[in-house]
C-alpha cells in the first residue's frame, strides 16, 4: 500500500517538474530576448535603413527589413486567402457529406502543414528558375503564401465546420444557392474564425526565414517593386548575428526583440478580435 502512495506522489512531482521545465523554457526565451534586445533598441533601429558600413557597426536601422517583412507577409497572406477560403468553402458547402475527396484534401493539407519551410524555399527557387526570375519580393510572396496556405486553410475549415447546421438549413430553405449561402451567411457568421486564421497565418509567415532565404533575397533599401529583392526581419536578425562585430550583434538582439514583439502583438490582436466580433454572430 505504501509503495503505491510513494509512486503516486513521485509521479506527481515528476509531472509538475516537467510542466515547470517547459513553461520556464518559454519564460527564459522571452526573458533573454527582452533583456538582451531592450538594451540595444533605439529609435534609429525602426526609423532608418542601413547606411554605408552598417554591418561594420556604423549608423542606420532595420526599417528596410520591417517594411519588407510587412509587404512580403501581407502579400503572401492575401494570396493565401484567395486559395484558402475557396477550398474551405468547397470542403464544407459543396462536397457531399462523407465525400472521399474532402477527406483526402484534409489529409493532404495536414501533410502539407508538416512540410518544412526550407522545402517551400527550395521549391520557390525552382519556380523562380523556371520563370527566369531572380530573388525578389514576388518570389518571397509566392513561397510564403504556399507555406501558410495549409495553416490558413485548415483553420478556416475548422471554423466553418463549427457553424451551427441550422444556419445552412435556414439559408437553403429560403431558396439561397450554395454560393449565396457561402457569401452571405458563412462569411459573416465565421468572420471571427476566418480573421483568426488570417492572423495565425500572418504570424507564422512573418517569422519564417528558411522559405525566403532563396526566394526574396535581401536588400538594404525599402522594396519599391515586386521584382526587386526585399529584406525580411528574420533574415536581418540572422545576418546581423553572423557578423563578427559585437555592436552589430547587439542590433541582431534588438531586431529579434522587434520580431518577437510583432508576433506577440498579432497573437494578442487575434484574441481581442475574436472576442469583439463574437457578439455579431448567431450562437
Amino acid at each position, binding site marked *: 500500500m505504501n509503495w*503505491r*502512495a510513494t*509512486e*503516486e506522489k513521485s*509521479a506527481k512531482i515528476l*509531472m*509538475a*517538474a*516537467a*510542466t515547470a*521545465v*517547459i513553461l520556464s*523554457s518559454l519564460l*527564459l*526565451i522571452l526573458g*533573454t*530576448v527582452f533583456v*538582451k534586445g531592450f538594451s540595444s533598441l533605439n529609435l534609429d533601429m525602426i526609423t532608418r535603413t542601413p547606411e554605408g558600413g552598417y554591418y561594420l557597426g556604423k549608423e542606420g536601422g532595420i526599417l528596410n527589413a520591417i517594411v519588407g517583412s510587412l509587404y512580403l507577409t501581407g502579400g503572401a497572406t492575401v494570396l493565401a486567402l484567395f*486559395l484558402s477560403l475557396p477550398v474551405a468553402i*468547397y*470542403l464544407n458547402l*459543396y*462536397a457531399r457529406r462523407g465525400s472521399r475527396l474532402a477527406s483526402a484534401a484534409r489529409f*493532404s*493539407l495536414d*501533410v502539407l502543414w*508538416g*512540410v*518544412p*519551410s*526550407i*522545402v*517551400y*524555399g*527550395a*521549391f520557390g*527557387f*525552382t519556380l523562380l*528558375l523556371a520563370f527566369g526570375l531572380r530573388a525578389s519580393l514576388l518570389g518571397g510572396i509566392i513561397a510564403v503564401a504556399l507555406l501558410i*496556405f*495549409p495553416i490558413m486553410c485548415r483553420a478556416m475549415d475548422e471554423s466553418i465546420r463549427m457553424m451551427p447546421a441550422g444556419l445552412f438549413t435556414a439559408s437553403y430553405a429560403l*431558396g439561397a*444557392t*450554395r454560393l449565396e449561402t457561402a457569401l452571405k451567411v458563412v462569411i459573416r457568421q465565421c468572420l471571427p474564425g476566418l480573421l483568426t486564421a488570417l492572423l495565425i497565418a500572418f504570424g*507564422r509567415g512573418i517569422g519564417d*526565414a*528558411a522559405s525566403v*532565404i*532563396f526566394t526574396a533575397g535581401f536588400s538594404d533599401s525599402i522594396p519599391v517593386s515586386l521584382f526587386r529583392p526585399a529584406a525580411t526581419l*528574420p533574415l536581418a*536578425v*540572422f545576418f546581423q*548575428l553572423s557578423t563578427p562585430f559585437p555592436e552589430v550583434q547587439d542590433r*541582431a*538582439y534588438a531586431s*529579434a526583440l522587434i*520580431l*518577437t514583439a510583432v508576433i*506577440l502583438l498579432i*497573437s494578442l490582436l487575434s484574441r481581442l478580435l475574436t472576442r469583439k466580433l463574437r457578439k455579431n454572430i448567431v450562437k
Partner: protein
Amino acid sequence: MIISPKRIFYDRWAGRLLLALTIAGSLLVVIIAAGLYLRSRPILADYPLADLLFSSSWRPLRGEFGFFPFIAGTFWVTGTAVLIAVPLCLLTAIFLSEYCPPRVREGVKPLIDLLAGIPSVVFGIWGVLTIVPLIQERIAPFFGISSSGYTVLAAGVVLAIMVFPVIIHVCLEVLGSVRRGLREASLALGATRWQTVKKVVVRRAFPGIVAAVVLGVSRALGETMAVLMVAGNVARVPSSVFDPAYPLPALIANNYGEMLSIPLYDSALLFSALVLLAVVVFFNVVSRIVLVRVEKRIE
C-alpha cells in the same frame, strides 16, 4: 422565390472553380516533389542514388557529392531532441490532462501556443546566447571534453523546445479522447490515479502518443534556421553529442549564395531538399493515418 437560371449558373460554375482549386491545393505536395525532382535530375543522372546517400565525401568543387554526413547529422540532432522532448512532453501532457484542475489547463494552453508562435531565429538567438556557452563552459568540461559549444547537443536542446508544442498539443487531444468510463472503472477497482494513467489511459492512447511523437520528429527533421545557428555546421559524421553536426536543412540554407556558380551544386542541393521532403512526408503520413483512426474512434 423562383430560382433564376443565372443564379444556378453562378452556383454551378463557382462549384467547379472551387473544386479545381481544392484539387490543386491537395496536389501541392505532389507538385512540390515533382518540381524538386525535375531540378535534381541532372545529379541523379550523373551519380548513382546509393553513392549520393551513403558516401561521406563532400567536395562540391571536385564534383563529389556525398550526403551521408548531413543525413547522419540530421538524425543525430533529431534523435537528441526527441530523447529530451518525449519524456518531458508526455509527463506534461498527462499532468495537464489527468491531474491538474481545468482552470490551470486552460491557463497553460495559450502559453504553449505562444511557444509555438515564436520564430525559429529567435530560438536560434536564444540558443547562441544561453545553451552554447552553457555547453562550452559547464557541461562539456564536466565530462572532460573541450567543445566550442556549437554541437549536436545544443541543436538538440533548442529543437526539443521547438517541438514541445507539437507533441503536447497532439498528446492532449489523444488523451482527451480516452473515454471517461475507462478511468472510472479503473479507479473503482481501487487503482491509484497513477496506476490508472499507466495501465489504462496511456495504454489506450498509445497509438496516438506514438503519432504525436512522430509528428514532433518530422517537425524537428526539417527545422532550419535555429539548427543552422547552433549546430556548428561541420561536414563530418558526428560521433558524440559534443561533436558539431551539419544537418540537411542547414546545408541547403547555408549555400544558397554560391549554388549557381559551381556545376551541379544547385541540383545537389535541390536533391537534398527532395530527400528531406520525402522523409518528412513519410513520417507525416504515418502519424496522420494513426491520428485519423484515433479520431474515428471518438465519433
